[in-house]
């Protein structure tokens, strides 16, 4: 499904940040609802002390991180077994989401480098606009069907 890790730690703790930087190769995003990527990894800001890490091998990455973070108050938890990642095509993504997602999805308001946790109908989702214009959507696996069904209902707006 996905090689996701949930990372918890204190962003005011320089040692914590340094340890993570050493493993990922980039800084954790500290600005709310932004992402940083590099070397095949992506870090998503989920909360003031919470990040989602998309890696190539979550078990291996978890081991390395835990080793680097030994002694720090933090948590590294594998969560990929329960997440599904969809990529919505650029041409129709924002319209498809507009049916049941209350977020302002206009390109000027929500673009690459950002992410957002929000809802699509009854499902909690995480959205990330990609450089290509496509939209990445992360959702818990048992809600994925519900999300897919809603997305497939979308129609383009009536011609003016």
């Amino acid at each position, binding site marked *: *499904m996905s090689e996701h890790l*949930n990372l*918890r730690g204190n962003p005011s703790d320089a040692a914590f940040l340094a340890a993570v930087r050493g493993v990922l190769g980039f800084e954790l995003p500290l600005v709310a609802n932004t992402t940083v990527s590099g070397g095949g990894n992506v870090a998503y800001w989920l909360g003031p002390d919470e990040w989602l890490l998309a890696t190539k091998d979550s*078990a291996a990455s978890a081991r390395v991180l835990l080793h680097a973070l030994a002694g720090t*108050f*933090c*948590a590294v*938890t*594998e*969560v*990929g*077994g*329960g*997440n599904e990642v969809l990529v919505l095509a650029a041409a129709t993504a924002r319209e498809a989401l*507009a*049916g*049941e*997602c*209350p977020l*302002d999805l*206009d390109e000027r*308001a929500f673009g690459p480098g950002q992410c957002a946790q929000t809802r699509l*109908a*009854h*499902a909690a989702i995480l959205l990330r606009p990609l450089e290509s214009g496509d939209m990445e959507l992360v959702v*818990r*696996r*048992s*809600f994925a*069907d*519900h999300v897919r*069904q*809603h997305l497939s*209902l979308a*129609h383009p*707006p*009536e011609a*003016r």
Partner: protein
Amino acid sequence: MSQSHRLPQGGRIDRSRTLRFTFNGRSHEGHPGDTLASALLANGVTLVARSWKYHRPRGIVAGGVEEPNAIVQLETGARTIPNARATEVELYDGLVAASVNCWPGPGLDLMAVTGLFSRIMPAGFYYKTFMWPKALWMRYEHYIRKASGLGRAPETNDPDRYEKRNAWCDVLVAGGGRAGLQAALEAGRAGRRVILADEQAELGGALLGDAHRVLDGASAAQWLQKAFAELAAMPNVQLLPRSTVFGYHDYNFLTIAQRLTDHLPLAQRAAVRERVWRVRAREVVLATGAIERPLVFADNDRPGVMLASAASRYTSRYGVRLGTRAVVFTNNNSAYRAALDLQRSGITVTVVDSRPASSAADGVKAAGIEVLFGAMVTQALGRRRVTGVRVLKDGAQRTLDCDLLALSGGWSPAVHLHAHSGGRPVFDEAKACFVPGKAAQAQRSVGACNGDFSRGEEAVQPLWLVPGPAGAKQFVDLQSDVTAADIALAAREGYRSIEHVKRYTALGFGTDQGKLGNINGMAILAKELGQSIAATGTTTFRPNYTPVTFGALAGPELGALFEPIRTTTLHGWHVAHGALFENVGQWKRPWYFPKAGEDLHAAVNRECLAARNAVAIMDASTLGKIDIQGPDAAAFLNLVYTNAWLKLGVGKCRYGLMLDENGMVMDDGVTTRLDENHFLMTTTTGGAARVMAWLERWLQTEWPHMQVYFTSVTEHFATAAVVGPKSRAVLQAVCEGVDFAQEAFPFMACKEGTVAGLPARIMRISFSGELAYEVNVRADRASAMWDALWAAGEPFGITPYGTETMHVLRAEKGFIIVGQDTDGSVTPVDLGMDWIIAKGKDFLGRRSLLRSDTRRDDRKHLVGLLAEEPATVLPEGAQVVSDARAPVPVPMLGHVTSSYFSAFLRRSIAMALVKNGRNRMGEKVELPLADGRVLRATISSPVFVDPEGARQNV
């Protein structure tokens, strides 16, 4: 003759195409661009309805959504629409419509007999009559209900599809008339994101019928064309025709109903029928126009009596010749336009103006139209069609012949959306109308809806009620049949507030929400009460502005989309093996796995015996799982669970009970200590999200100093429960790296190993009382684990089981299920679980267990019930009493919470909450059922099987 009243030319209709439609069984013709109302008028049909209460003949009064009379039942069968307004229905080929509230038709209405009793049927008459004898009220109500109402609701499912759309914009313009289009142009030119919505198919509002208007040097038609071209070229502007802004809520949140297929013939309707837009706007521009008021005088409801602006509209926009002789009765200048329009269509016109003089008359006089000033129409003559009017001028009565009476009593700005948004309309004495008051949100009102009139509406002298002959009805609200006398009656009976008068008389209660009658009604009430209109005020306008289809409000969330249907990664296997499913929260969990020919009972009996005698397997993946880490993890568990956690050994499991602060059982589950500062908590399936939120909230808001993190891993792991005397053998066959011997792997311990090559965590815990294990692996690879367990179990006859069997097995052991045996009002003491309440530490809910009410000795206790007839399964929910023959009300002792047939014991068992139950062991009780049977049972311990706990200790 077809279209007997169509003018030879003119109108915004496409005369090159002819549409056929049926009204009350008769065929007629019209053209694209017609509404059903305009087409009926063009075919000479003026009698279209019977009024709601008195069944008086009625005709078309208005041109748009404010229409009170022309209510029709559109189409039949699944697509039927009750209470459609003929003035709103766009004509399409093959349209079928019928009048409502009359039988067999408006022409001959046998229900009109009620009209004969009209003198004893004023407002509120049903509160005063039908009161005796009291016992017959329900019978009266049955017939009153049958006689009431207008259209008929459909009886089959709506076949259409509906959508929702969220949208954000800088400016939302409600109304596409001149003022709205102007606002959209300005905002669009400034590069802002604009949405403009108008309820009609064509934008332009009143300009569409105003062929002779000149704007900025061009004709109205040219002005519109230029505006449309410019707006269409702006990518930042979205135009929504056929879209009604029907609600304006907090924080500039507005709802718009966009109609997409109602104007098409039935056979062409394949796409989404309606879309509800949910819009957040930085700023709202209200350009909703104004609605003309009728005048109130005797018999002002006759067919052929309509608003002057409607007469003008039917003439110019739809090319209809409305009659031969018209009287225009007005108190303001705007009606003079209508007089000219009517005359141009070949009708002889006389204007009756209640004011002493007006310069606007000069233009019509020059055209040869007679104007009577200082005159009032006191009564309309005729019954099925107006034939003339009585006019009072200078104290003298005269009669004028006419077959059309056009009224203009002034104009009321459409302030509904302004009121929805929190604004309070204020009465403008000079313009004799309510205008928007101070805005409560970021909005402005423009054009006629702001009282900025431009066609003579402002030169008005109020005339709220024309005195008339005694006994004749002067209608204020046409749809609800409310007369001026009704309002006077309400005032006499002591009603002072306009809100009370509205509800007592039904003023404004119809599907038109009083758009034509409310203001007149308020003014009449003000006079009755001897106070100003401003002091009387308006009733509060609330969404929806016009009726909205239920389907549109539901959107696509029906059937399978109503709620998420959640399944585990093992679902495919369950389906393939014949499982039937039950809903547990949003999840579909296997309920039982019937073999060929088995019903629920046969399957469950077999599954239970397999679990107790051999080995059985169940998918337990849906239970909540929360990863808890941090130096304060154990201390936090101590706060949320009733029992003690600090000393739980690493690799050990413990059952935990969670209470709310009121001391009531909230959730439970087994929690495992994986390491010094690392725990894995499980919750019930249905409680997973609630418990996660509970933990976070207490941490964040009450104990932020505690160092602990919670991460949900409910979906990351899948869990297989392997249960029964042979479970160890099965696990030994598939698991590597774990010693399963009793001493090495005792009850309530956790080990890590490998199953089918996957890292696995195995807990030896038991909800059945049998030797049992739960195997956890990554959910997306769980099939390999399950298949391996299944294969290893085949030699032992491994049997899949579902939630029903799980329920039976745990009930045999007296284990509770939170939410089944508890309901939020049950404490651990009630459940006999004193042993789980730790002394010497505080925890959520502890103090509440010391309240006098939670310490009462007559609280309900969890007990077992053994039915007198061993084969009889007591119904869950059955009430427990001592003696069913005791006089009513029989004291209730409690109820049955869980009840099953136990194949292991070959008899039924049940758990129940019974007052002081623990002190009543052996007592006999009775359970009276709704069907009259009385069952009998004996109170027993709730642990029916293996009370010593030996079966799991092998």
